[in-house]
C-alpha cells in the first residue's frame, strides 16, 4: 500500500469558540459596561442607594455632583419629584435588559426555525413564509404596539410581545439566506446519499453552522431592542409607573428639559452606552467568527 500514514502528531480539536475568543483582543470596556448593567439587572433595588420611587419634594431638581450645588448623596442629580436618578437608572436596567433578552431569545428561536424551514424546503413553503415575513416587515412596529397595547393593556408583557413580533422576521430572513447556501454544501448532499433523514440533516449539518450567525445577530440586536423598549415606554405603550425603565424616565423628564437637563440626559446616556457596548461586542463577535478573517 502506498498510503501515507503521516498524520499530525497532536490531536488538536478545531479551535472552539471559547479559545477563539481568547485569541483576539477583547473589547474590554464594552464588556465591563455590560457587566455593570448585568449586575444592576440582577440586584436592582437592593444595591440602589435610594428608593427609586421615594418621593422627596424637598430635594427636587438637584443637579449632578460635578455641577454647582451638586452633592454626593445624589451623584446624577434628582428629578422633578426628588427621586434619585442614579438609583432609578440602576433599577430601570432590569426592564431594559430582561425585556431585551426575553424578546431576543423568543424572536431568535422562532425566526431561526422558520428561516431554516423556509430555506431548506424551498418552493411553495418558502414562498408563503417569505410573503408573511414581507407583510410583517411592512407593518409599522409602533402601530402594531398601539394595537397590542389596546388589546392587552400596556405592560412588560406587551413590550416583549411587540418586540418578538417585530424582530423575528430579521432572524427568519438571515437564517433562510444562510440555509440556502448551506444546503448546497457537498456534505449535505452526501448525508442524503448516506440515507440520513431530514431531522439529522437539520440538527447535525445545518443548525451548528448557523449558530454563529444567530449569536452575532442577537448581540447586535440587544442595542436595537433596548432602544425600541425605551421608545415604547416613552410613548406610554410599555412600562407603567411605579415600575421603572429608562424609556419611562425619558418620558417623565421631557417636561423639565429646560430647568433640569440631567433628568433626561442621564438615562439617555445609559441607553447609548449600553447599546454601543452591545454593538461593539456584536461587531467583534462577527469579526471573530468570520471564517475569512480567521485564517492568519
Amino acid at each position, binding site marked *: 500500500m502506498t498510503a501515507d500514514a503521516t498524520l499530525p502528531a497532536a490531536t488538536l480539536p478545531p479551535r472552539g469558540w471559547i479559545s477563539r475568543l481568547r485569541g483576539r483582543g477583547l473589547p474590554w470596556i464594552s464588556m465591563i459596561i455590560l457587566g455593570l448593567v448585568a449586575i444592576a439587572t440582577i440586584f436592582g433595588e437592593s444595591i440602589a442607594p435610594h428608593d427609586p420611587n421615594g418621593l422627596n419634594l424637598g430635594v427636587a431638581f438637584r443637579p449632578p455632583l460635578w455641577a454647582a450645588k451638586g452633592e454626593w448623596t445624589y451623584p446624577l442629580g434628582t428629578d422633578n419629584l426628588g427621586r434619585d436618578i442614579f438609583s432609578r437608572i440602576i433599577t430601570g436596567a432590569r426592564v431594559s435588559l430582561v425585556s431585551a433578552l426575553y424578546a431576543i431569545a423568543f424572536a431568535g428561536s422562532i425566526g431561526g426555525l422558520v428561516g431554516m424551514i423556509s430555506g431548506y424546503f424551498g418552493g411553495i413553503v418558502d414562498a408563503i413564509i417569505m410573503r408573511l415575513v414581507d407583510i410583517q416587515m411592512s407593518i409599522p412596529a409602533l402601530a402594531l404596539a398601539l394595537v397590542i397595547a389596546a388589546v392587552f393593556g400596556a405592560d412588560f408583557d406587551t413590550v416583549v410581545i411587540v418586540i418578538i413580533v417585530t424582530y423575528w422576521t430579521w432572524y427568519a430572513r438571515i437564517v433562510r439566506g444562510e440555509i440556502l447556501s448551506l444546503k448546497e454544501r457537498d456534505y449535505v*448532499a452526501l448525508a442524503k446519499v448516506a440515507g440520513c433523514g431530514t431531522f439529522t440533516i437539520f440538527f447535525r449539518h445545518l443548525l451548528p453552522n448557523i449558530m454563529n450567525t444567530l449569536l452575532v445577530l442577537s448581540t447586535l440586536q440587544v442595542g436595537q431592542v433596548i432602544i425600541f423598549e425605551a421608545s415604547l415606554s416613552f410613548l406610554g405603550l410599555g412600562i407603567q409607573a411605579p415600575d421603572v425603565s429608562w424609556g419611562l424616565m425619558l418620558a417623565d423628564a421631557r417636561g423639565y428639559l429646560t430647568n433640569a437637563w440631567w433628568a433626561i440626559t442621564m438615562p439617555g446616556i445609559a441607553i447609548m452606552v449600553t447599546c454601543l457596548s452591545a454593538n461593539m461586542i456584536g461587531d467583534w463577535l462577527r469579526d471573530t467568527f468570520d471564517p475569512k478573517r480567521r485564517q492568519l
Partner: protein
Amino acid sequence: MSLLEIRDLKKHFRVGGGLLSTAGTVKAVDGVSFAVGEGETFALVGESGCGKTTIAKMVLMLERPTSGAILFDGEDLASMGSAGVKAYRRQVQTVFQDPYASLNPRLRVRTIIAEPILAHGRPERATLRKRVEEVLDVVGLPKTAADLFPHEFSGGQRQRVAIARALALNPRCIVLDEPISALDVSIRAQILNLLADIQERFRLTYLIIAHDLALVEHFSTRVGVMYLGNMVEAGPTSEVFAHPRHPYTQALLASVPRPDPDHRPPADAIRGEIASAMAPPSGCKFHPRCPHAMPVCNTEFPGWRNLGATHAAACHLLELT
C-alpha cells in the same frame, strides 16, 4: 444483466422568468441511455455543461428525472417505496470532487464515517468502532485518524476519508464525481491506485464522471462521451480511444495537451465554443463546430448507430458508409 441501467433519461431545468427575462428551459440531460455492468467502470466524459454531473445526481437521487428511468438491479428507482430507497442508498454511495467541501468541518472523522452506518441501523458501539477502523485501514489511514477533524488532514488524506465513508456500508456501486481533479498532481496517483485496489477487493462497480481524457482512458473499462445533454459516442474505452468515430470525440482527443513536447495540439482541432444550453443548435447539436457538417446535420437529429457489438455513435456521417 447490467447493475445500473439508464433509459432515455431527461432532465430539464426551468431558468429565468424574472422581471426582465422570460423563462427558458435548459435541457441539461436530453435523452441519454446507457448500462453499467457489474464490476465495470463506466466513465461519463465531456466538457462543462454536457450534463454528466446531472446524470450522477439523478443516479444518487439528489435530483428527480424529468422523464426516463434509472434501473438498479432491474428495479426502477421511481417506483421504489421508502424501504426500497433505503436499500438502494445502502448499495450506491459516492465520492465527490472537493474533499474540502464534502466533509463537515465540525465533525470528527469517526462521526463522518459512521454517519451512513447509523442512518441504516443501530449497531453496538464496539461493532461500529471496529467497522470505522476497518475502513480507515482499507484506505490506508491509521486508527488514530478517527479522532481528528477534517481540517487536520491534507487534501489527499481527506479524500481517503471520503472514500472510507463511501465504503462504510459495503456498497455495490460508487459514483465518483471527478474524484481526483481537486487534488495535487503528486497525490492523484495515490488516490487513483487506491480506487483501483478497492474496486478489485470489493468487486465494486464504478460510475465515474470526469473531464480528463487521459484519466478516463487509464481508469475506465467503458466510456460514454457527452455533448450538450446528449451522448454522442459510447463503447469500450480502448476501442473508443483508439478509433473514435464521432467528430466530437475525435476533436476532444486531439485537443488534449500531452506531456510530450513534440505533440502540439493542432489549433484547428475544433472551432468555436459550446453553444448555450438554453438555445442549443438545431439538428445535431455539434454541427456548428463540426468540420464535416452537412446540410442534414442542421435539420435532423442523428440517430444512434451501432458500430460493433458494443460501440455506437450518433452522427450522420456514419450513415454514409
